[in-house]
């Protein structure tokens, strides 16, 4: 379908999102195939991210591909002062596709411009992490049966959380209604609210979600980090308002599912884990199928 890099969630159109999600469903049915048999994929992790790296490497291995690369920049020539450009140029000639995680923002875009092979962004600083967004969308699609007209609750750190920003941008193409639940310090930035206003989409802002939780189709939890607060007393006062407990799910919709990009600390109480509405562990597994779909689609390979 396309021979291009995936750097930012806005690189894909609505049809392309749906194409990837459809392909991911095919890989979920048949996750072990040999379609990457002759392919070498570079996995360049300039900063450690065990979860994302293992998910990518599992996706590649299950499709029969070979992985080369490094899992943190200490074991690469970056320590010798090599520029990103040179590293990418050289690695390009060793592989068919590059998966890259880098602490600097915009590094993936730049890499995609100097590389001679497609680049998949596995996170560039606080900027973009498009494969996470696609796996979030896949999880929504799978649990709701569709993506249109959903009530999506985003809870916790909505100011700095890149996952909620990307998910908002993607789901805004599917007529979602958004509920933003956060402390005032960590509210959804204006640029995203402006984006929704421009599209004529509804959104509501709340400080607490116990009253409105019965409207939710999806609850997307994020971690409220203590370091984000200038006033530690304010943190102590507000932190419990953003913890999801099993009892809160009592009168919620039957189709409601709780998502979380993980790692979780205490924002979802462990008593939620056994509730059928808890979906975050399966969500992580979906990441493998979605990454299989992204790699296969970029390399124009078909699922068997």
């Amino acid at each position, binding site marked *: 379908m396309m021979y291009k890099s995936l750097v930012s969630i806005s690189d894909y159109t609505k049809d392309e999102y749906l194409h990837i999600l459809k392909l991911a469903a095919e890989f979920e049915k048949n996750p072990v195939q040999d379609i990457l048999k002759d392919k070498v994929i570079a996995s360049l992790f300039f900063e450690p991210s065990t979860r994302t790296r293992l998910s990518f490497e599992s996706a590649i291995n299950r499709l029969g591909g070979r992985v080369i690369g490094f899992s943190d920049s200490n074991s690469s020539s970056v320590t010798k002062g090599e520029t990103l450009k040179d590293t990418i140029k050289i690695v390009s000639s060793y592989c068919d596709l590059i998966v890259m995680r880098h602490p600097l*923002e915009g590094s993936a875009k730049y890499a995609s411009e100097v590389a001679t092979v497609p680049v998949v962004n596995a996170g560039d600083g606080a900027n973009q992490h498009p494969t996470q967004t696609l796996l979030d969308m896949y999880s929504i699609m799978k649990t709701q049966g569709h993506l249109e007209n959903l009530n999506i609750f985003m809870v916790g750190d909505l100011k700095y959380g890149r996952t909620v920003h990307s998910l908002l941008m993607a789901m805004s193409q599917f007529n979602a209604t958004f509920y933003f639940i956060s402390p005032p310090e960590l509210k959804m930035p204006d640029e995203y609210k402006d984006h929704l206003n421009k599209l004529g989409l509804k959104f509501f802002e709340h400080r607490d979600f116990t009253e409105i939780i019965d409207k939710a189709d999806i609850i997307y939890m994020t971690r409220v980090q203590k370091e984000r607060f200038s006033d530690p007393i304010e943190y102590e006062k507000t932190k419990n308002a953003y913890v999801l407990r099993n009892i809160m799910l009592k009168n919620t919709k039957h189709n409601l599912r709780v998502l979380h990009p993980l790692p979780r600390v205490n924002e979802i109480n462990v008593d939620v884990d056994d509730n059928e509405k808890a979906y975050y562990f399966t969500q992580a597994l979906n990441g493998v199928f979605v990454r299989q779909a992204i790699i296969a689609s970029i390399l124009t390979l078909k699922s068997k």
Partner: protein
Amino acid sequence: MKDKKQLQVNAIKDGTVIDHIPAKNLFKVISILGLDKIETLITFGTNLESKKLGSKAIIKIADIFFRDEEINKISLVAPDAKLNIIKDYEVIEKKVVAVPDNIIGITKCFNPKCITNNEPVKTKFHVMSKKDVTLKCHYCEKVMDPEQFVII
């Protein structure tokens, strides 16, 4: 008392006059156009009275005529600038600057964690609003407004 109008900066025979530059951005305009590196006669005046800008600057450059894409670069710091093209002491053409769709080079990205501030990468921005000149970094996707521009 009679209103006395006088020229505060001498006229040039042939060349370009750039008027209505905000006084505080005069040296940025000079640096963007590379006027510090050319050898023809340049005169400029600054902190001149302006009804519109409060205080303005004017630059007169002898024997130099700019291409549009070159002059449009100054729209980042002097969006209201007006150009007079002079031939034989006469104004033969008047121009205004236009904000381009993309800005390459000229300003740094204000995000210290942007790749362009950490590797030798030429900056590139997409103009989000031409009215108040807000720029979105092509690389890190952060949006900045004119107060955050640092001219390279």
